[in-house]
Structure formats: C-alpha cells, structure tokens
C-alpha cells in the first residue's frame, strides 16, 4: 500500500494510505483519547472523544472514523479540541457513579484517567446529574457484574461479544437516558452468555467487572504471563498475583489467543489457591494414607519398585505420564522409566484421545499433528468440523471458526450426530449415525471423484495409492452412504462440492473421529479426503486434529509413549536405540511397551505389579471404570504424584504433592505444535515440588541420578535428542513460542506442515472399508451412548470442580435425551434416570433436548458421582489401541417421580 504525507501538529508524517486519522496519529506516536475505539473492534464513532481539528473543515472531526487524505493538516491539541473533549468527559461524569474509591476498575479505568487529565474534580464540573442514575448492579451471572451506573454506552462489550467471540449475546436495551447493555432478557443470567469475559477485558470503565471482588488494586499486584492449564489451545494468560495468591486472570494479547480466553481460562484457576492442595508426601500405613517426609516417601517407592523389578523383571513395572504436566517433566518421566527402571511401559492419556491420530496421520503424511496454525483457520474459505464440539472443548478455536464464518464469509460444514452450537453458524449440518464416519467420508470422496473435483495434479505428484483407494471408494455411492449413515445423499453431495472447490478448505476433527475401534481408519479417511482434493500443505488448508489437553501434544512429542523415544523415534529401530543408550548411559529395552488400557489388563493378569502415575486420574478418565478400579486395587504397589487427592491418588500406597502449572518453569506444546513457556507465578504450597524435581529425586533413589538445575537445562537435553525440537531453547520462547519442526536454533519454526513434500515423502492414500462400531444397540440395550465434555468442566474435574463459578454454571452430571425418547420412557426434564450398559450403571439427571438424535444418549464424563466411564466400552482400535469411548449400547430407565428423584 502506498504511503502519503500528512501534517500532524505542525510536523510532517509519512503514513500508510487508507488508515484513519486516529491510526495515523497512533503510528506517529501522538496520543488521542478514545473510549469507544478499540483496535480489535469495528469503528463505532460514538464517544466523540477523539475529535481533532482538520484544516478546511469547520467542525471538529472524530479521528477514529476520518480517513486521511494527502496533505491533510491535523491539529490534535488545540484549546478548542481540549475544550470539546473536556465537555464530553464532563457530560459522561454527570451520569456516572463516581465511586472510584471502591470501584473494581480504579487504576485501569479509562474514564478515570481522562477525568484526572482534564481536571474534572467535583467543583469544576459544569454538569452535575441527579443521583437517580445510581442503580443496583446486575450480579446474576456467576462470573461478572454489570453496573449500569458506570456504563458509558461505548458498546465495546457488544462488539467484543459479536465480533471477537462471534456470540453476540450482549445488546443495547432501552431508550434515551435509560440506555444500557444487557446480556440477556432483563438479567444477565437469563442468556446464552457463557462467561468468557471478553467484554470485561475490553470494558473501559468498571461497568463490567469480575464478580468475585479482587480486593487488590491494579498497581499493587504482580502480573506474570504464563500458559493456561486447560485445553490444547495454549492461551497465553496474564496472572495477577498478590501476597502469594492468584487474584485474577486476563488474556494476554499475543498469539494464539490475542487477549481472548474462555470461562475456564479466565475464572477457572482458583484451584491453585485451594486449601485441599496436597502439601506433604503421604504413605499408606495400616491402610491409611498418613503424612511422611520426602525421604521416607521416595525411599518407599524406590524400595518397592526395586523389589518388584528384582523378582519379576523391569517389564512388571509401568508408568503413566501426563498430558497435564510440562514437556520437561514428561521427558524425565519416560527417561526414568526407560533408563532407571528399564521398561518401555510408559504411556499417558493421549492413548484415550488421539492415539489414532498419531498412528493414522503418521501413516498417511509421516507426522501426526495439526498441519496448520490456529490463526490460519480464520482465513480458511471452508471449514469442515467433524467430531469436535469446538466451542466447548477448544473455546478460543471455536471463536476463530465463528469469526471465519461471520467476519470473513467462510463456509462451515458440521458433521456431527449432536446438534452442537457451531451448527448455528453452519452452511450445512450433516447428522451421521454414531460410528459411521468412514462411510460418509468415503461417500464424499465418491462424489468428488465422480464429479471430477479431485486435484489430479496433486494426486499424481504428491501421493501414492489412488487406484487402490478408488476401488473401495467407488462402492460408496451417496445413496448407499445414506443407508449406512442416514445423511441425505443430496446434502452429502453439496458438502463434498463445497469442500473440494473452496480455495482453502481445512478439516477440524477431534474425539468424535478418534475414539472408535475404527479410530485409525477414520483418521486415514480424513487424510484421504484432504489429499485427493489437494486441500493440504498450504496456508489455512489441511488436516487439523485438535488436541484435548494443554500438553498432550508435548507429552507425545517427548516420548511418553510405549513405542517411541522423544521425537517419535521408534524403540525398535537399532540406530535409534543406540543413540539413546549412548545419551542416557544405560542399556535400554527395544521391546514396545504396554498402552494405558493394556496396562490395566495386565495388572489383572499379574503382568504388571508396580505402577507410577504422574498427574493422571484413570479412576474417572478411563473406559470401563469397574475394571480400572479392580486393577488399581489389585496392583501390588501404586505411587501417584498429583496436586490434589484425586480418586486415583486415594487408592495409592504413596502420594507425592506436586506443584501446579502456575508454580513451576517449563514448557507446554499446544495443539498447533507451538512450544510455549510456563513461568513460576506462585511458590508451591507446603512441601510440594515440581514434578521434574520429584522425578530427579526418585530416579536418584532408583540408582540413576539426574542432575538438572532448571527446566531450561532439561529442554537443552530434549533438543539434542529430538530432531523436531532441535532448535528449541527456553530463551527463544519469551515472546511467542516456536512451532515445531524447528531443526536448529536459528530456524523460525513451522507455521504449516507438508508444504512441498509430506514428512514421509509421498502422501499415502489408504483404502478404508466401513466397519460398524463394536457394540450396536439391541433389544436389551436399545440406545447409543456417546460421551464427551462440556465447556465448564475439564476432564475428570480435579481442577474445575474446585472452582465455585464453574460449579454454579454446571453443578453436576446429566444425560441428554431426545424429546421423543423421553416421552416414550416417561422421562421429564430435570428428573432422574438410570443408564445401564453391559459394564455398569449410573444415575443421573435427565435433560430433554433436540441436541441429540432420537435413539441416542449423551453424557459428559467429568462427574465422578455419575461417571460416564462406568458405562463406556474398552474395546480397542487394533492399531492405535484407543478405546471406543464414543459408542456404546445402553438402556435408560426412569427413577422415581420427577418431583422426588431418588
């Protein structure tokens, strides 16, 4: 864009053509006050504070909506301008409840700053309103407070909710002097507001504030940037700390979230302050867990593991690493298991979410991770979302998808058995029968190839196996697919055409694709679809599995898997084995270890006798809980490191208190392969230690000393052994993090994968035939049960269920059932029902809703008192060993009357 010269306050400035006067002033370093203007939002031009003099114009011009013209002469600080601004602030104050002494916003309030700047003390104000504008604030939302008497109607919140979050739940209500904003009908709670708090962050005054009074002033707190502990988006947060307590969280304005975050990120970190945090090591004595010293606890673990190893061999011990702790800690954990204990029996809960992605995408492309960056999704022209309830599980990515649709006109295709919230924004919604994904994907490819929309050049140059693929795909005509999936043939055709012909199509998928006995097949099919249309290897276009946990990508990357060392280097490869034996100075096992579900099975057969678990809670997260419970009771020795006495820790022989994410240094790797930094925001409570320090102690006690002075030092070791992390150092990560692959310290990182060639060379098209789910409904168990997550809780709830506001939003478990089924079974909304499968039975609250299809039931798995995983099927995908958590056959029975419950 060309540059032009304008004159601001008597000096020439060269600025980009097409910008506004306000932007030009900003780039020239000249401050212009503005209340309704915010760089992230569309222009409102309503506060008039930014007025300036422009030569040739009689009236003052609002700088925020006035475009610059060549040779424009602007004056920003004349008496006339100052007088006009002063009047505006004066008028705003006339109807403003100026209780700055106790206002939540004091110190960061933009109106307060202006009032001070323009000297508008009570005596010099020309406009004094009556007092009747002071009203009681609306405190009906669990997380925020709206105080009308401090609202200046700048509409930033309305635009933030609509334009940034894509939700649009806030609107202006009433008329003239009564105008205010509302998040619902009359009251905030009576709305679809999900509490993300974007509006609070952008409010210039104290009108919208955090409901739980912080009680500390902006200037008294220490603000530390770190990474969020919840989902795989890896939001950068600014944590406010005062006297060793976390008092507030804001979104940090950097990649990948640019200031946004979700209700969990903003309001869900209270758990670090919880009195229930583990503060001392505990060992089981006479059946009771009692406090012990670190030396005693570590000594006990070491002696038990040594004993088991000596009598039954190293492979009778297994370890569960964690997708919730840092890369450095997962690296040390697997190093300890492999070098100190001598077994490859190390796995973590990625087995339960994206094992099939790692297996499937590695087979198809050569590397199993999100191919594109989060930010690129905003500019995709078509987004196909399947098996991902993105707005609840990855809320910030959900908002980016909504923005792509609302602000940039992307077409959104949702393929999901549930009517998830994204359906509201979708161009097309295809409701498939649960577990029939291979069929509809093959059907789409059938349409694409039959109608000649496939990318012949891409197929010829970049892939192999097209003819074999076509042999299978040709059988999946849309009509046959309709029989299998219930997706109308016409809709499938339309979706196929949109996906294939859009300039940049991106596929987003998650657990709905992976958690099946055909999980790997599903992933291969998704990869096929992207490859035959050439929708991969370019910006905004590719295959994007959303990783669930904050560091599930990293835990896999650094080798917390039974078949690979860090960087997905196979334990069975002699060259790799030699490299690690040399680096770690021990003989290592070249035998693939056991996976999560296999470990539980082996315990039952006495194959596994000792188990070390770091920050995982299989007693809620794993399928077929009755079986897990039995295994954990039977295992000879169980040691758990955690931040709380989780359901699993309560069964352990030794429990070690760990530092939370906010109490240590380290790195996470988010879903877009970005290695991001964790800072020590708070000291750990009591005697708790970061997991990496615990592992160092334990490994030393096992006769394999580890000496690291910092997490950064551990990262240097990871980089030396892991080609995709070779260039990563903590010192590089302070601003934005680095996306792997990053082969050397000067490499900038990789925004999107597979640009000119796939990691494996040619992309491999795998012909995949349709196989039905392991367990289908029958007379005895007539419903299809599916499980998943909700926005307000995280995984097994160890953290979120200790946060008051989140519990207010979602106090307990429930099941969703279709109105027609509810009528047949005489179930009422809010009543109780029993859900039973071949593996177990739970009682829960009934929600009658059209979100689920007839014949289907959905249950979130966060709630231990109604644990969905008592019901789920632990049948495994033969390749990835991922259990089929998404489909089980169940029956539903009413309990008692709707009034009484039972």
């Amino acid at each position: 864009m060309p540059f032009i010269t304008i004159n601001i306050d008597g000096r020439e400035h060269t600025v980009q053509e097409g910008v506004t006067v306000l932007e030009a002033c900003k780039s020239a370093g000249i401050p212009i006050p503005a209340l309704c203007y915010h760089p992230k939002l569309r222009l409102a031009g309503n506060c008039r504070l930014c007025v300036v003099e422009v030569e040739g114009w009689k009236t003052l011009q609002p700088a925020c909506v006035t475009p610059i013209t060549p040779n424009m002469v602007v004056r920003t600080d004349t008496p006339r301008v100052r007088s006009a601004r002063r009047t505006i602030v004066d008028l705003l104050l006339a109807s403003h409840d100026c209780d700055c002494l106790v206002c939540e916003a004091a110190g960061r309030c933009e109106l307060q700053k202006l009032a001070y700047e323009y000297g508008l003390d009570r005596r010099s104000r020309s406009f004094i309103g009556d007092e009747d504008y002071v009203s009681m604030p609306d405190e009906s939302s669990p997380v925020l407070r709206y105080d009308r008497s401090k609202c200046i109607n700048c509409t930033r919140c309305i635009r933030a909710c609509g334009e940034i979050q894509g939700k649009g739940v806030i609107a202006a209500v009433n008329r003239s002097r009564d105008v205010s904003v509302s998040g619902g009908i009359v009251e905030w709670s009576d709305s679809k507001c999900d509490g993300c708090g974007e509006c609070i962050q952008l409010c210039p005054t104290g009108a919208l504030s955090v409901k739980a009074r912080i009680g500390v002033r902006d200037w008294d707190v220490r603000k530390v940037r770190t990474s969020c502990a919840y989902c795989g988006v890896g939001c950068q947060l600014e944590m406010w700390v005062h006297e060793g307590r976390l008092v507030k969280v804001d979104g940090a304005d950097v990649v990948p979230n640019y200031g946004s975050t979700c209700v969990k990120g903003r309001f869900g970190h209270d758990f670090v302050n919880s009195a229930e945090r583990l503060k001392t090591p505990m060992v089981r004595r006479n059946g009771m867990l009692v406090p012990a010293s670190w030396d005693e606890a570590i000594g006990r673990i070491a002696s038990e593991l040594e004993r088991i190893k000596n009598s039954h061999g190293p492979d009778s011990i297994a370890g569960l690493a964690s997708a919730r702790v840092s890369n450095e800690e997962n690296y040390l954990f697997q190093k300890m298991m492999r070098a100190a204990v001598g077994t490859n029996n190390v796995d973590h809960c990625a087995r339960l979410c994206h094992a099939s992605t790692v297996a499937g995408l590695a087979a198809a492309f050569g590397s199993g991770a999100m191919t594109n960056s989060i930010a690129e999704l905003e500019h995709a022209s078509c987004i196909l979302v399947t098996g991902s309830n993105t707005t609840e599980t990855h809320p910030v990515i959900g908002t980016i998808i909504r923005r792509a649709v609302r602000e940039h006109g992307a077409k959104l295709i949702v393929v999901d058995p549930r009517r998830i919230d994204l359906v509201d924004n979708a161009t097309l919604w295809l409701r498939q029968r649960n577990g029939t994904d291979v069929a509809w994907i093959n059907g789409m490819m059938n349409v694409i190839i039959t109608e000649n929309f496939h990318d012949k050049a891409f197929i010829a140059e970049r892939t192999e196996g097209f003819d074999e693929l076509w042999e299978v795909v040709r059988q999946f005509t849309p009509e046959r697919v309709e029989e299998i999936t219930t997706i109308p043939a016409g809709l499938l055709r339309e979706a196929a055409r949109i996906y294939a012909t859009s300039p940049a199509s991106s596929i987003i998928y998650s657990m709905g694709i992976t958690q099946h006995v055909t999980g790997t097949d599903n992933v291969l099919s998704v990869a096929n679809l992207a490859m035959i249309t050439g929708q991969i290897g370019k910006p905004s276009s590719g295959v994007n599995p959303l990783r669930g946990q904050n560091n599930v990508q990293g835990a896999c990357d650094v080798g917390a898997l039974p078949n690979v060392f860090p960087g997905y280097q196979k334990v069975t490869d002699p060259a790799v084995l030699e490299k690690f034996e040399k680096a770690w100075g021990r003989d290592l096992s070249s035998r693939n270890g056991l996976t999560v579900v296999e470990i539980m099975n082996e315990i039952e057969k006495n194959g596994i006798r000792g188990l070390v678990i770091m920050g995982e809670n299989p007693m809620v997260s794993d399928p077929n809980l009755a079986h897990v419970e039995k295994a954990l009771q039977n295992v000879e020795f169980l040691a758990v490191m955690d931040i709380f006495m989780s359901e699993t820790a309560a069964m352990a022989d030794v429990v070690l208190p760990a530092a939370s994410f906010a109490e240590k240094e380290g790195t996470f790797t988010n879903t877009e392969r970005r290695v991001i930094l964790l800072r020590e925001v708070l000291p750990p409570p009591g005697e708790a230690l970061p997991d990496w320090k615990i592992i160092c102690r334990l490994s030393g006690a096992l006769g394999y000393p580890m000496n690291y002075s910092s997490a950064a030092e551990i990262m240097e070791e990871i980089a030396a052994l892991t080609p995709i992390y070779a260039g990563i150092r903590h010192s590089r990560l302070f601003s934005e993090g680095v996306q792997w692959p990053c082969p050397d310290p000067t490499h900038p990182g990789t925004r999107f994968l597979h640009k000119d060639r796939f990691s494996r060379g040619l992309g491999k098209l795998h012909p995949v035939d349709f196989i039905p789910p392991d367990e289908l409904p029958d007379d005895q168990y007539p419903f299809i049960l599916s499980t998943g997550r909700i926005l307000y809780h995280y995984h097994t709830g160890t953290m979120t269920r200790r946060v008051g506001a989140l519990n207010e939003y979602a106090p307990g478990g429930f099941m969703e059932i279709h109105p027609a089924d509810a009528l047949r079974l005489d179930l009422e909304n809010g009543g109780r029902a029993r859900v039973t499968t071949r593996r177990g039975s739970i009682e829960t609250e009934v929600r009658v809703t059209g979100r689920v299809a007839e014949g289907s039931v959905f249950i979130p798995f966060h709630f231990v008192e109604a644990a969905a995983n008592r019901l789920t099927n632990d049948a495994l995908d033969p390749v990835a060993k991922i259990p089929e958590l998404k489909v089980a056959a169940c029956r539903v029975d009413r309990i008692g009357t709707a009034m009484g419950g039972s």
Partner: protein
Amino acid sequence: MDENFNYRLWRYDGAQGELIPLLQSAQDHFGYIPRRAIKYIADVTGTPEASVYGVITFYSQFRLQPMGRYVIRVCDGTACHVSSSRMLIDAIEDELSVEIGGTTSDGLFTLTTVACLGCCSLAPVMMINDETHGKLTPAAVRKILREIRRRDAASKPPQAGGECAREAGA
C-alpha cells in the same frame, strides 16, 4: 410453545427485517410479550435474545407486562389538560387504586395517558379500548368504570390478568 402461538407466527419466512412484525403478532396474541415469546422469536429468527429484548424496550408500543382487559387512555393533550384532565386521572387512580402505567390486581383495567386523541372539541376525553368518552367529569368517569366492572362480573367469572388477555382484533 402452544400451537396457537406457532400459528400466529405463520408469516415468518426467514426474511430479514421481520422482527417487529413478529413481536407485534406476539403482542396481539398475548396482549403483551411474554418471556417465552422472546425466546421463541429469538430462536426462529436467529437473533440473540438480548437484541430482541433491546428492540422491545426501544419501542413504546411493546409491553413486557400484561395489560388489563380494558385499557384506559386518558388524554392529557393541551385541550384536555386545560379542561382539567388531571382531575379525571386523579379520580381513576382513586377509583381503581392504580397509578399511571399500572394494571389493577384483578387484571381488568390498565391506566395510561396519551398526548392527544384528536377530538379536542369533546375535551376532556378518554378512550377505553375502542370506545371514546367525551366531556367527562370525575363523577362520570367513576360511573363508567363501575358500569364496566358490573357488566364484566355479570358476563364471566373474574380472572387474573395475563395470558387470558384479549384475542387479536377483538
């Protein structure tokens, strides 16, 4: 949502700019706009609930509270005002124990004022539903109100205000 209400919304065909007609038809049906109608209209039009609420609160024609079966519009325009319309209002407030804008507890009357009814020669004037009463005195007003109350009690048992309000076009 009851069948009848869905029927009232027949004219919505997904076109933009239909929100106000929909709100009018809901108000015609219920006599006011109940909360469930706001939710329903927000849902069928894909408009956020708060935006629908914003539109309702912007226009004075929309009501969020039920109206009485008899809506009294006392004219307080210039001609009526100088003819002591204030006395009529005082008499009604006293007779019905209700303030301007309010509805009697039995749901029978709602008292409102208007700026002009366009028949200044009959000042002071009021309308009760579609019927106009002119050259009024406080005593005449009380008589009219008592007569309505008597007729209403004779025709049907008393009902509470709310969704039993008048049918559209009645």
